[in-house]
């Protein structure tokens, strides 16, 4: 990011803000855990670890050494997107911040939050079909048009693209695995199809990039970036697939012995 052009005063202030923000996020999570442990069952340590690593992943995606390299190298850019749009959101979802927040607010505020969660907007924005559209659609737009090169000329565009990548990754993960309070649940079958479609779109796009480098990226760099996107994306999607199936089969355990399996699995079984 070309922060250097903006004058030293603003620059150092922005730099300070950049480092204060992630530390603030980690700090407030830890305080919330401390408060929650006073009143409720102990908050799992794994979730604290997920939150800390998740916040680091997201911020490594926008600042620090890898993000610096990403201006010149497409492969490094791809790594930042894996951190910012896939690994970071997955870890943050697993850390269940909304659940933690609900434990720490007053009853009225809790009602307000759950009213928000039940709202039509949240239902719409966390619907699997919407989240794959936001996710895959955004990526296709970024790499198949000249948006990628334009992003490096306009700082506001750079910021908007990166916020979108993060938020799209976050709502996508939220729509697939149910760890937070999720009033609007969709069937396992729909989520399975949506996840396969999203993985396919990701894989196809990475091969497309391999063969058709975005404007301003040389062929070798695009090939390495495309392969990183392909295999890196697969690894993180595999974790989501395992979690989705694990949740489905755990929820089936209570109902073993009846016909709950086949309709839920969508394995084309008819009576």
């Amino acid at each position, binding site marked *: 990011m070309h922060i250097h052009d903006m004058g030293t005063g603003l620059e150092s202030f922005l730099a300070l803000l950049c480092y204060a923000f992630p530390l603030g996020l980690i700090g407030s999570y830890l305080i919330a855990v401390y408060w929650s442990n006073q009143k409720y069952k102990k908050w799992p340590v794994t979730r604290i670890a997920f939150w800390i690593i998740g916040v680091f992943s997201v911020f490594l995606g926008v600042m620090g050494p890898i993000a610096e390299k990403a201006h010149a190298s497409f492969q490094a850019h791809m790594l930042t997107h894996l951190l910012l749009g896939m690994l970071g959101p997955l870890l943050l979802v697993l850390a269940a911040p909304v659940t933690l927040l609900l434990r720490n607010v007053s009853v009225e505020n809790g009602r307000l939050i759950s009213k928000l969660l039940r709202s039509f907007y949240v239902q719409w924005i966390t619907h699997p079909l919407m989240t794959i559209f936001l996710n895959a659609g955004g990526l296709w737009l970024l790499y198949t048009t000249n948006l990628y090169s334009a992003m490096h000329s306009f700082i506001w565009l750079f910021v908007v693209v990166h916020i979108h990548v993060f938020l799209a990754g976050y709502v996508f993960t939220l729509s697939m695995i149910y760890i937070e309070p999720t009033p609007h649940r969709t069937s396992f079958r729909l989520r*399975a199809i949506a*996840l*396969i*479609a*999203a*993985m*396919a*779109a*990701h*894989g*196809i796009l990475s*091969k*497309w990039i*391999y*063969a058709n480098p975005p404007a301003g990226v040389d062929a070798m760099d695009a090939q390495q970036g*495309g*392969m990183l996107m*392909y295999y890196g994306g*697969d690894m993180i*999607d*595999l974790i989501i*697939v*395992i979690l989705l*199936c*694990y949740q*489905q*089969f755990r929820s*089936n355990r209570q109902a*073993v*012995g*009846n*016909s709950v*399996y*086949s309709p839920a*699995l969508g*394995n*084309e*079984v008819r009576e």
Partner: protein
Amino acid sequence: MEKRKSSHDAPFNFWSGVLFGLGLVAFIDEAVFHQLLHWHHFYDKSTTNIGLISDGLFHAFSWFATVVSLFMLADLWRRKVWNGKRWIGAAFLGAGVFQLYDGLIQHKLMRLHQIRYVEDVFYYDVVWNVLAGCMIIIGLVLVLLKKAPKKGKEGEA
């Protein structure tokens, strides 16, 4: 723990096996031919767009199939209703059908990539597809064989 049967156990065994076979072949394809031998190419200049889409969908589906089939298998074991012959037969069937699709449609028709970049790729293609055919036959025999002594007790898969 007693057996907990359900009328869906036969198709459940069958589909778990099919999905596992499909996922296993896709995994072997990726691990052996792409990564270890480097026979297959990540991308081939003659790949058609439809080939790219077909490959992407199958690749994603095979990841999902492997995971979901193993969860289904765990469920079958937990309830002690695993039918080994049907499951393994179905796995051969899934593996064979996918390999035949990969060999005929994806490699030849959609020109995704070739098995190996040599002059006589024809022989590789023959071995590949004949192997696929053998797996389908073994699969069909195992799946259908099981039904004879049971006198059609199980549901149709």
